[in-house]
């Protein structure tokens, strides 16, 4: 039973991690809590559903198209709602993010209606038995897709020029531009990648739970943000760790009979971690400068 819950938790956690990566990358560079990120995830899920139901595409085409759609959306969102506020206070940008989030939610509701939309089965769900554990094919696909995406991301930020520029910009914004790095382009790129990962998460979740809904991004986004902070916001491995940690902890919490406190589990964990490690598990300590 315990092992089973671990697998369930890992599946959920890898999805949280994919969303959390977007939060953490954006925060790393421009210190913005992109509260509309959960909505990008939701729109990614809808894009996936639309590809499957209206255009009859399979899993790979759907997830790719969803990622592309959200890349564009993420870049546009940054241009319209965040760039004009880059020199303003964090709270101003935060309010703009909340406004954008309300806008996207309601736009989707207007288009698709408020009720959840079913996500047709694109993959024949088989169940594999590994010892006492049952793993479904969908779970495996989620785990594998997340792992591949995270590996690709890791490759990009480690070895590709623009990825390195992202890291440089997140360590020292001004100096990065002194290197000849076009910061605006790096920020757009960051939004594009983060949004693509969120879209992938949306499609995977839709496939796993067979449903997508206009309000699905709200809690998922908030939890993923928790995961990012838990792991140490700004840190990419932190977001992965935080997401998985949160997913497993939440599943375990439910299994232990705390399901009515489910939404509180993530936050309780977060608070406990922050009290002992104020910048998250893999975050760097802040030096008090005098």
């Amino acid at each position, binding site marked *: 039973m315990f092992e089973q819950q671990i697998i369930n938790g890992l599946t959920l956690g890898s999805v949280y991690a994919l969303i959390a990566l977007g939060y953490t990358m954006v925060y790393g560079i421009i210190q913005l809590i992109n509260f509309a990120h959960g909505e990008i995830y939701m729109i990614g899920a809808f894009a996936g559903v639309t590809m499957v139901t209206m255009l009859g595409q399979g899993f790979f085409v759907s997830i790719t198209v969803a990622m592309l759609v959200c890349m564009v959306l993420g870049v546009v969102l940054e241009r319209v709602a965040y760039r004009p506020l880059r020199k303003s206070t964090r709270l101003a940008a935060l309010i703009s993010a909340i406004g954008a989030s309300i806008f996207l939610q*309601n736009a989707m509701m207007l288009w698709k*209606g*408020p009720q959840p939309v*079913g996500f047709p089965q694109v993959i024949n769900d088989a169940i594999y038995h590994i010892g006492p554990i049952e793993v479904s094919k969908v779970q495996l696909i989620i785990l594998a897709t997340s792992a591949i995406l995270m590996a690709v991301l890791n490759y990009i930020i480690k070895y590709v020029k623009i990825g390195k520029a992202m890291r440089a910009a997140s360590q020292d914004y001004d100096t990065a531009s002194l290197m000849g790095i076009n910061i605006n382009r790096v920020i757009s790129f960051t939004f594009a990648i983060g949004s693509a990962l969120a879209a992938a998460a949306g499609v995977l*979740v839709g496939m796993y739970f*067979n449903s997508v809904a206009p309000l699905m991004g709200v809690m998922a986004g908030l939890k993923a943000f928790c995961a990012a902070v838990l792991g140490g916001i700004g840190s990419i491995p932190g977001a992965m760790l935080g997401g998985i940690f949160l997913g497993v902890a939440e*599943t375990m919490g439910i299994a232990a009979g705390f*399901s*009515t406190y*489910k939404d509180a589990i993530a936050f309780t964990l977060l608070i406990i971690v922050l009290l002992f490690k104020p910048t998250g598990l893999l975050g760097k300590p802040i030096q008090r400068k005098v």
Partner: protein
Amino acid sequence: MKKKSILLAIVTILALTLVTVGCGGGGGEDTTSTDSNDEAAIKIGFLGATTGGHAYYGINTLAGMKMAADELNEAGGVIGKQIEIVEADHGSKLSEGATVAQKLIQRDKVNAIVGDPTTGITKIAAPIAEDNQVVQISAGAVGDYVVNTEDGKLREFVYRNTLLNAVAVPPVVKYLKDELGWNKVAVVTSMNNDYSVGLTKLFKEALNDAGVEIVADESIQDGDQNFSAQVTSIKPNNPDGIVFTGYYTEGGLFMKEVRKQGLDIDMVGGDGLLAETLWEMGGEAVNGSMVYCGFAADPTMAEGKTKAFIENYSTANDGALPDMFVAQGYDAVMMLADAMKAAESDDPVVFKEEIKKFEDWQGVSGTITIRDDHEPLKSPVYLLEVAEGDNGQQFKVKAVIPVK
């Protein structure tokens, strides 16, 4: 520069305020004028959500109301007047629910309100309707303290036309035990859903009374998508069936997980499960799932009024069948119309007396008797079952259980 922008801000605010006042003065979008007690039309306000978490119920209720109004108007109206539906969205927010109720009554001067489809906002609007002497019929609220107050006083202006769970659950449980042979059940409750919490309480009482054993008692939450943990813990208890008191989204997903884990039992639940979304979510896993409700859109079994209603709706909506909220919204308007006709008045103080007298009133969602405690006694209870039909999955009537 600075002064200029402050000025700009102030001007913007003034403009906004003007628009507000203008809008307030002009009334809602569907009203033509705000003259007090407009003699030309009978206004019926729609209290419900078209955005936010409860939008689904609101939108369908509104559709039923409009259909009823159109039919009445085509037939020459009620006591010589046309019916006009005034709509206002409250975005599924409690505080806005109160505001909208006030707006309907004060700005739009409605004669009656239909709504809200949920208990919470109905409870918020009820004292407002009562104080202002406007009839309110909720086409969906099933919780306590709607037609009466917490201290037991009956409200004179507030009614509802739903099948109450307290009325429906005992016969349904009896049917499960006697006809289907369920002796052990698992109960699943959505803890952040007041409907589910209330329904679970009723089911547990009825199950105890009928001598059915509850072998697992699991909690979920609305918005959850992952139920593997709960199903994993139900499995070893081997129940004969699952009583699921939550809504369709979670219900469908829950059954999917049940099948995924290889459990071959069915679930039964209230009208919270009644939507196509159930199989959109659950796929084949929900085949055999049962839902009881006060209305079944089964054209093959329906007759009379109900049959006509289903057909009309279907024609107007590309073959889609009406659901319970559409039917109850429709019935609510029809009840108001009949009461007004009987009283020959559209004055709520007068025609509310006629509502109290309803006995075996034939609506499209069943017969309604308003009891002395103002609660509706609706008969029959339909027990529906998800089954494969000609156009894929659909709800089929499994049993019609009369209520005494």
